[in-house]
């Protein structure tokens, strides 16, 4: 062992010592967050996410340019880490190599891979640097980003590769110089990470493993609050009120901006940037950890205006390559605004009050809920119960379907299909109340739980098992969030239900082979699509109803679909800043040249038809149920 080996051993111990100090510091920072034990269940599912999203970079590849570039760097790092271990051990123990411990062919394969992947990494970082310096990719810009950090990191990685190649290719003093440069760059890199957004190199994989955004559990369900005991702070005002996992999200974010680039609010000129939310969480956490209690995350970092711009469409969450949950932070902060401080846009007050008093966000008489069914001979659950009968399914109509003139047409269309198919169904009529989704997403958990519990009580009273509904918000709530309060039902969205009726040959359709070809484009509802993974049923339903259908897709469709702008309670708020989201979406739909737009959600129906109408277009907007009802043979 030479003096140089000893010096290197000391350097390695110091580097790893400093790194582990930083790891401990960061773990300590995470402990500032709220207790959250929902992160260790269903380990097989978590390993599957880890493999798919982490190791195989499933979401990274959603971007066709940055995807392969990043995958080359990531997989290269995995391979080259082996070489780094060999190098470090070789620096301490003279002449150390893996070669005596593995078959010759194996070692040659390993060496070959070291070179190939180092070359790929070098090419990828060169491309990344070139792209950053010359292309000004929009999603990489933004006031909240640390713009010089990536340039430093990319150059650093490039230097790592070059010194590695150089040390292999040289001998004597030049070799020693290159070897030491490489070794110091590696150890320096390791210790720079905790101070950089590139901490994601270390945190991303655990973050994917611990995330619930792709399961396990119900996707997109909000955390139920214990309203009796959760009384110190409602929702979140600062980092200590957020789950420690939300704080880890801050460490995992590398500011790639994919979330912000798909955010409907951001795209139409609102202040909200989901990336900024995550960056703010980390910034505020670091200040808090240093003892700065003079500011709070809410107000000092994230403003009310940003929070109320969110449509809860989940596009940001869907897009994040490392499974960050931006939305849960937004929603916890909204909870604090509403439950803790009664701060919200004044135009939603009537919706809150009406939901509380009349069980609907619109001030209609609850006695009029079943008015649409006049003359259709549709029984209520109460009427059936009186006759000691129980229907096959409960048709949950929803507030829009009951009171909104346009949506009532969808309601009637769907009821006609159910009758034509001979389905034994009933409605709740006056006993149905708002599902509470808008209240919950606007932060009013108190009102939400009141509505949810009332509805569950009603459903239990009639022993309801199967619920079918034409509203994705009712569908998501009753099916995915009511189980939190003991309501467990088999809930089916009408698009799926109609499709299964058609597949069973129960829907009598006209067989007119001389119909003209119709061109439709289908607008995906967020709560049906991204929240519940229902993309094919509405499309398939229309194909079955219209044999001559030409279905064209918008550039943003299915899990990349753009929100109509009504989710998260935005339906009840004014949209004063920037372009209207429904205008953006309607333009996209009209640009397909389709002669009709299909939707599967009453909120989307309002937003899309309002915007289409406002531009004097002759394009019709239909609900999928109306498309089918129009083809009924009776």
């Amino acid at each position, binding site marked *: 062992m030479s003096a140089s080996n000893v010096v290197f051993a000391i350097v390695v111990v110091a580097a790893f010592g400093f790194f582990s100090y930083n790891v401990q510091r960061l773990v300590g920072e995470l402990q500032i967050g709220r207790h959250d034990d929902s992160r260790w269940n269903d380990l097989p599912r978590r390993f599957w996410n880890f493999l798919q999203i982490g190791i195989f970079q499933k979401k990274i590849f959603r971007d066709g340019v940055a995807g392969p570039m990043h995958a080359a760097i990531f997989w290269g790092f995995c391979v080259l880490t082996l070489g780094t271990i060999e190098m470090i051990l070789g620096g301490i123990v003279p002449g150390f190599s893996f070669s005596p411990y593995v078959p010759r062919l194996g070692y040659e394969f390993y060496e070959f891979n070291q070179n190939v992947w180092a070359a790929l990494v070098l090419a990828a970082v060169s491309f990344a640097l070139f792209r950053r310096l010359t292309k000004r990719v929009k999603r990489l810009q933004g006031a909240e980003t640390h713009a010089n950090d990536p340039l430093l990191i990319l150059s650093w990685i490039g230097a790592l590769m070059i010194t590695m190649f150089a040390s292999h290719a040289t001998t004597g003093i030049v070799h020693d110089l290159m070897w030491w440069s490489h070794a110091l760059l590696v150890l320096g890199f390791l210790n720079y990470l905790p101070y950089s957004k590139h901490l994601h190199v270390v945190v991303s994989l655990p973050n994917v493993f611990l995330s619930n955004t792709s399961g396990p559990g119900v996707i997109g369900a909000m955390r139920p609050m214990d309203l009796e005991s959760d009384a110190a702070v409602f929702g979140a005002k600062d980092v200590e009120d957020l789950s420690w996992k939300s704080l880890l999200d801050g460490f995992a974010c590398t500011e790639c901006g994919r979330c912000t680039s798909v955010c409907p609010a951001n795209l139409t000129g609102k202040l909200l940037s989901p990336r900024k939310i995550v960056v703010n969480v980390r910034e505020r956490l670091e200040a808090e950890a240093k003892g700065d209690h003079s500011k709070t995350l809410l107000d000092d970092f994230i403003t009310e205006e940003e929070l109320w711009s969110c449509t809860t469409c989940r596009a940001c969450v869907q897009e994040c390559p490392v499974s960050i949950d931006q939305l849960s932070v937004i929603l916890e902060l909204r909870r604090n605004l509403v439950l803790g401080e*009664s701060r919200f846009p004044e135009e939603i007050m009537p919706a809150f*009050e009406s939901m509380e008093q009349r069980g609907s966000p619109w001030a209609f008489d609850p*006695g009029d809920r079943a008015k649409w069914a006049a003359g259709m001979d549709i029984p209520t659950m109460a009427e059936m119960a009186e006759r000691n009968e129980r229907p096959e399914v409960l048709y949950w109509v929803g507030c829009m379907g009951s009171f909104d003139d346009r949506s009532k047409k969808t309601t009637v269309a769907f009821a006609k299909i159910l009758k034509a198919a001979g389905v034994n169904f009933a409605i709740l009529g006056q006993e149905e109340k708002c599902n509470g989704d808008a209240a919950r997403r606007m932060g009013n958990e108190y009102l939400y739980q009141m509505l949810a519990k009332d509805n569950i009580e009603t459903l239990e009273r009639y022993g309801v098992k199967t619920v079918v509904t034409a509203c994705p918000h009712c569908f998501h709530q009753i099916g995915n969030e009511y189980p939190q309060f003991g309501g467990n039902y088999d809930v089916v969205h009408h698009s799926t239900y109609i499709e299964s009726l058609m597949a069973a040959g129960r829907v009598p359709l006209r067989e007119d082979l001389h119909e003209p070809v119709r061109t439709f484009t289908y607008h995906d509802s967020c709560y049906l699509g991204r929240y519940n993974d229902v993309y094919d049923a509405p499309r398939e339903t229309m194909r079955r109803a219209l044999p001559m259908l030409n279905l064209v897709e918008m550039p943003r469709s299915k899990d990349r679909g753009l929100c109509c702008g009504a989710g998260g309670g935005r339906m009840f708020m004014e949209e004063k800043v920037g372009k209207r989201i429904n205008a953006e979406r309607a333009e996209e739909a009209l640009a397909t040249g389709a002669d009709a737009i299909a939707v599967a959600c009453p909120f989307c129906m309002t937003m899309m038809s309002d915007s289409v109408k406002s531009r004097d277009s002759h394009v019709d907007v239909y609900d999928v149920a109306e498309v089918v009802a129009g083809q009924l043979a009776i």
Partner: protein
Amino acid sequence: MDVRFKIAPSGISVDESGLKFDISDFDGYAVEAALQIKEKQADPAASEVVVISLGPDVVQETLRKAMSMGADRAVQLKYDGPIHDSYAIASALAAELKGGSYDLVMFGRMSIDTANQATGTIAAELLGLPIITAISKLDIEGGRVKARRELEGAYELVECPLPAVVTIDEGIARPRYPSLKGIMAAKKKPLESKPAQVGEERYKLDKMELPPERAAGRIIGEGKDAVPELVRLLKEEAKVL
């Protein structure tokens, strides 16, 4: 609000089944105005906002709501039957208010069901206190009430010494939405219930009736040929010409 009422079998009250009760609009403004006065005090904790309501036990829910907005305590003057005479109500309220040594008594300008506008005024008289009615702006300065009343195309500023009675018009303040913190706190605030000492009802409600349903519109015809028939109908049937 678009709720249709049904008249109860008694014929003198509304069928309350399925109705959800809330603070009457003007009383809501009054509660908000009271809370703002309290919050403006140098030491808000030293002053107290008390809400009082006369009625059956459902009013307790309304009183809790006022306390969830921030009122400190509540008194229910329990009375179960229908009651219409403002004097009878005011005498029960005055009996309760008399012992309370309140600096300021605030009423809604009127209740939104009977709309009599009399209860606050009668109570002031029974208490022997000055009253300013239907005020849209209120300040307390140096032991005096300074109020603004909206008139048609003008307003007037009125003052009187405390203690006093005021009745509150709209526009004074928008009632706050109770926070969950407030709702939780309200559960622990005192709500006292005692029998109302209702005075003699001097007038009686005989009968309530819904307005007749409007008949559906009729299309007589189109173009100028339809005009003579329209004029005839307006003269003979509608009797407006």
